[in-house]
């Protein structure tokens, strides 16, 4: 007892404006939840729809972040897993008549299996070579979805139109409001799981593999198994996002899941901050809103404006939004 109290006296608690850091974290989390809860009752349906999409992209980026940020594997092919999740949801809802609620876990399982299986051979590849292999996946997926073998299920080039679900139990919500609530609930589950995963033994193993694969393996970590599993979990997250995305857009077509989407997810990852879980939310917002901002600046040069914004963001925040926040906190803490 005595020993413990002396210990706490020796370790100074980092504070900002007199409030301890863990308390700050709780305050921010609480404020975030309040904002999330207020959105459907304050904003117009169109903005609710946009924020729903941003949250969905954030989940997909979280999946990519688990792979790239915490496990050090590159992927330019996550649009493929997004597509598989989306088509799983669409086919279940329209061809099999299953409720949209069940499409989320099924899309998760399907994408986990796909990701794990793709991860196995990809293990032999490192860094940019893996990026290239996943790039091939991203290029192939739209073509595969168009092929006549699968056309009966995928609807070929025309895609599948989905009926947007209404709020259940007679809740007085519009379908946009309900989809927002539904997506936020799924997102909260996914974020809690990801936070716990990263903080767990498994998470430490993932990070150890990222930092030093040889040392990790010397410590008794089964590197290949963990890498494949991480690939699977990463695909699972992106697939869940894909399924949610399909329901929110209420349409899937091969042209929805091109390489451009894979790059967008990658951009979101970098802007939000590599290996930061809250940063993925910033990434999701960036992916959705910045192209619109660029377009409103100049229609003809939207691409160039987007590029300039991206350059400025990377220049000002070289470690992403999460890095900027960390830097700010460390400055504030030091001053005290």
């Amino acid at each position, binding site marked *: 007892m005595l020993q413990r109290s002396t210990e706490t006296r020796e370790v100074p608690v980092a504070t900002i404006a007199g409030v301890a850091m863990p308390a700050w974290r709780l305050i921010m989390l609480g404020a975030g939840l309040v904002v999330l809860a207020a959105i459907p009752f304050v904003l*117009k349906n169109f903005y609710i729809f946009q924020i729903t*999409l941003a949250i969905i992209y954030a989940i997909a980026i979280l999946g990519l972040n688990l792979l790239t940020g915490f496990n050090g594997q590159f992927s330019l092919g996550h649009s493929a897993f997004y597509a598989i999740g989306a088509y799983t949801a669409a086919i279940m809802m329209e061809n099999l008549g299953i409720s949209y609620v069940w499409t989320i876990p099924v899309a998760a399982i399907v994408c986990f299996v796909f990701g794990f299986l793709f991860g196995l051979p990809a293990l032999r590849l490192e860094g940019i070579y893996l990026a290239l292999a996943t790039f091939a996946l991203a290029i192939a997926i739209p073509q595969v979805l*168009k092929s006549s073998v699968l056309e009966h299920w995928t609807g070929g080039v025309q895609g599948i139109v989905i009926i947007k679900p209404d709020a259940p139990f007679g809740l007085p919500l519009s379908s946009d409001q309900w989809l927002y609530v539904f997506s936020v609930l799924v997102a909260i589950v996914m974020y809690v799981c990801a936070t716990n995963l990263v903080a767990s033994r498994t998470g430490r193993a993932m990070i150890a593999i990222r930092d030093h694969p040889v040392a990790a393996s010397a410590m008794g970590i089964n590197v290949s198994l963990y890498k494949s599993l991480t690939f699977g979990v990463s695909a699972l997250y992106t697939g869940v996002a894909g399924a949610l995305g399909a329901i929110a857009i209420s*349409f899937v077509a091969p042209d*929805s899941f091109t390489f*451009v989407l894979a790059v967008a997810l990658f951009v979101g990852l970098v802007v939000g901050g590599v290996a930061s879980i809250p940063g993925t939310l910033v990434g999701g917002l960036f992916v959705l809103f910045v192209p619109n901002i660029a377009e409103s600046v100049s229609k003809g040069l*939207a691409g160039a404006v987007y590029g300039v914004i991206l350059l400025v963001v990377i220049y000002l925040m070289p470690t992403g939004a999460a890095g900027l926040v960390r830097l700010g906190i460390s400055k504030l803490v030091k001053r005290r």
Partner: protein
Amino acid sequence: MRNAMRAWIAIAACCLLASPAVAQKKYDPGASDTEIRIGNIMPYSGPASAYGTIGKALAAYFNKVNAEGGINGRKIRFITYDDGYAPPKTVEQARRLVENDEVLLILNSLGTAHNTAIQKYMNARKVPQLFVATGATKFGDPKNFPWTMGWQPNYQSEGRIFAQYILKNHPDGKIGILFQNDDYGKDYVKGLKDGLAGKMMIVAELPFEASDPTVDSQMVSLKASGADIFYNVTTPKFAAQSIKKAAEIGWKPVHLLNSVSASVGAVMKPAGLENGKGVLTAVYGKDPTDPAWKDDAGMKEWVAFMDKYYPDGDKSSSFPVYGYSIARTMVQVLRQCGDDVTRENVMRQAANLKDFETGMALPGITINTSPTDFYPIEQMQMGRFNGESFVPFGPVLSGEVGGS
């Protein structure tokens, strides 16, 4: 007391609504005494950005309309957004236009999948999705989608026109078909078969996948089938391959090429101009590069428009011609609306176009619609490639699909 007051107001309101003489001017969101807001979605960026020219031509034409005083005194505000040719973005932009910008209607949004993605939404919202930029036959279905209308000849109409031509000129021929195995290809084949009504023999019907590298083997099989009429339903890359291959293996059938690939630059040049001589297609618009139209009044008007309002535009491209024609049709619909600028009346007038001429369609080709006919252009003329351009010949043929 309060209740009585309310009742009186209600009665007064009912009277106002009931008597047509009092309330002449009627507006929906997006229209007012001074302004009509029109939305549009184009792929200004991404793999199909070449189509962006259409959006620019539309904007230029509405500038001209505004400079000349607007329509019935109302200026047009044309709001156009980029979807990068990605259907999810199309949905987002359509919702932005309808819910945020509160446009009266969405005009000429581009792409088959992209229009499919927003069709249900537009119809549920009862916002006109007018003159969509795709030839898919499914966008003229007033029974199920009364708020969606196409514009250009649909694929099935074109198939029927080809059928009429061969029934008249080559009734004893044997037909070989090469088609892309998707909705677009099947639409074309269905149109041809409906038009033939079983009167001619189809000896071979070979599909290919959009993902196939070549159609060489299909071409060899088609020649071996003994067909002497070749119905070529392919997109530009495969069209060029097939024309080239036919020349290589010495197969010289009556060659009917779908208008999707009737492009000198993208198809005939890569295939070899010499190889393409005599290839037939169906056309409905005036080709701005064809010297035959040099003194044509409609063409002169278009050139003047391009010079004044869209000077950066490429005058040899068919896209500005297309945008110009769409915009003129839109203006005609709004003129017909008069002071009743509601979404319902817009659809009513769009379905009530009678012999409207865009000025850039071939002589004799006019726009006609009715409450049961949501296919504005259903006439085309056969065109023959002379080594430089597709020259229209013969009578104007009609390929009406359903409706009347």
